[in-house]
């Protein structure tokens, strides 16, 4: 694990999300958004432990996963802005953001909707005899959808190369997990399917990385599915408008003490100086701002682009060769 790389990724995510937040507050973005501020460590820790060819299926709160996977933030901004230069030509937006060239099979607007899709990707790997793995992010709230149960069951009986990563940030929108689940841990639920699980501190990128690395290797070698539950917290509201009446400012403050970024900085200070850190910060901040400026100068889709493409043609060359 290259701590500097991780830090830069996490910082990019943070600045990216803050920019998105700011854009929303100014009315410069349509739709809604779900920011992962506070949860950067799970994104960089998990994805940092994967190979480029591993598949990722993400959630509505997926910018971090995507950036960690190596996406071009300009093209993400373009997508959020609904520009034709976006990864999905502006059609998908924040909740339907797929980047096939990165094996990133999409953020997902349907809570729990990505779980079976990830199982499908894992089945594909298994059938093809490849040694990659599929990673499925989901929230603790999503673990109440039937798809969670059904997908874990299939992963288990078919011994699929899949890693389920639950980002347990304690809330699903306004709903505290303890109000909609008997137990506070999602990991318990994996036991029904004989799927091994670990519960880890999701605010610590290093811990997330190490655990993922170890578990991913086991899966890659045919060990079958596993589940990681990362305890984390979103510092922001659920989506663009959220008064956060369902939790206290004290609880938030306590969690902010665990902010993954300062933690990384502390580690970094063992190798570089505070001044160098400041330089990195400024440069990443600038690159995020620049990316936005480039994106916003892009083009809106035209009417033909909006109306075409509901159906794939036979001759369409599909990147994965499934013609």
């Amino acid at each position, binding site marked *: 694990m290259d701590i500097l790389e991780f830090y830069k990724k996490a910082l990019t995510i943070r600045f990216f999300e803050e920019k998105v937040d700011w854009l929303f507050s100014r009315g410069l973005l349509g739709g*809604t958004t779900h920011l992962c501020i506070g949860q950067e460590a799970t994104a960089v820790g998990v994805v940092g432990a994967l190979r480029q060819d591993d598949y990722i299926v993400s959630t509505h709160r997926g910018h971090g996963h995507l950036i960690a996977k190596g996406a071009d933030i300009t093209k993400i901004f373009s997508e959020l802005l609904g520009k034709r230069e976006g990864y999905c030509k502006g*059609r998908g937006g924040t*909740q339907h953001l797929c980047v096939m060239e990165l094996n990133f099979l999409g953020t997902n607007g349907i809570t729990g909707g990505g779980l079976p899709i990830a199982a499908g990707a894992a089945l594909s790997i298994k059938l093809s005899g490849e040694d990659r793995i599929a990673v499925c992010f989901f929230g603790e709230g999503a673990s109440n959808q039937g798809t969670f149960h059904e997908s874990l069951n299939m992963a288990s009986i078919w011994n699929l190369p899949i890693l389920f990563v639950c980002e347990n940030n304690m809330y*699903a929108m306004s709903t505290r997990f303890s109000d909609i*689940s008997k137990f506070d841990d999602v990991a318990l639920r994996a036991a029904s399917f004989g799927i091994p699980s670990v519960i880890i501190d999701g605010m610590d990128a290093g811990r997330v990385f190490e655990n993922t690395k170890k578990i991913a290797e086991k899966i890659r070698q045919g060990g079958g599915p596993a589940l990681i539950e990362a305890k984390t917290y979103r510092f922001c509201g659920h989506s663009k408008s959220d008064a956060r009446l*369902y939790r206290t400012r004290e609880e938030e403050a306590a969690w902010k003490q665990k902010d993954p970024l300062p933690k990384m900085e502390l580690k970094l200070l063992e190798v570089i100086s505070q001044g160098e850190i400041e330089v990195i910060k400024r440069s990443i901040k600038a690159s995020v701002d620049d990316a936005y400026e480039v994106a916003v100068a892009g083009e809106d889709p035209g009417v033909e682009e*909006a109306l075409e493409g509901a159906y794939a043609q036979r001759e369409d060359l599909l990147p994965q060769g499934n013609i």
Partner: protein
Amino acid sequence: MRKEKISYRKAIYKALDYALGSDEKTVFLGEDISAYGGAFGVSADLYKKYPTRVISTPISEGSFTGVAVGLSMTGYRVITEIMFMDFMTLAMDQIINHAANIHYMYGGQIACPIVVRTPAGGYRGYGPSHSKAMENLFMSIPGVKIVAPSSVEDAYGCFLSAVYDNNPVIFVEHKLLYNLEEEAELQSGKQVPLGKARVIKEGGDVTIVSHSYGVALAKEALADLEADGIDAELIDLRSIKPLDIETVIESVSKTGRLVTVEEGSIFGGVGAEVACQVIENCLQYIDGRIVRVGKADVPIPASLTAERFVLPSKGSIIEGVKKSLSW
């Protein structure tokens, strides 16, 4: 009772409050309907007023709809909220194979009085999984009613009718209507019967038939049409099932022209049914093209610009009307 300015959102709130307040055997189920008030803030403080009967559920649309069915079979009237209409896909089994069938398949032993409330529709850049107006999906399902009011008074009155109906009712609330404010007289408990369309504006040249937010768009179009010397009649269906085709037929018999407006797909949509019934009943009066205005047959893109090209608009309605007159 004086008329006061009131929003569509507030009207639904008041109807919910009335229903929960006047009958202890009424339950309201949905995700985040407590402190959050639902994704669109409709239910506000109801969870405080009716703490045991306003129940925030886990994210389990498929099963909490089934819970509603079970409650309704054992003596309760149930209102559920599906946070976005797009998520109704997860509740389809309980609606289609269970709720809709119960009265008939059990030989009339029991009914299933549930209302599935759901915010629907686009124009907000939410993208393909959060923007659909899918009322047409339920048209062919016997046993369910489909209601999609466009005005504040109807929101209140139709909602209460839906609650006191003994059948499952899909109650569609367009997101862009929530902030609509109108001078309205909400007489406590007053119901607006389902299955009765409303003539919003009389006119002699062409009949425009719509529902939900389509009516708001059509209203905008009326002024432009008038400026062009076109005197359109505008009908708000209010409920799609039962469908008040008589009111439509009466109008088309007079105008000879029909334009249907809906936010869902034209192919297999509400307009097809309305037009078809008009043809079956008064073909002889038609002397203009029948035109259907609706969503292009593509998913709803997130890009606000692209979304505008895909969904119906004031412009496409005007175009549709002119097309119907041009023949």
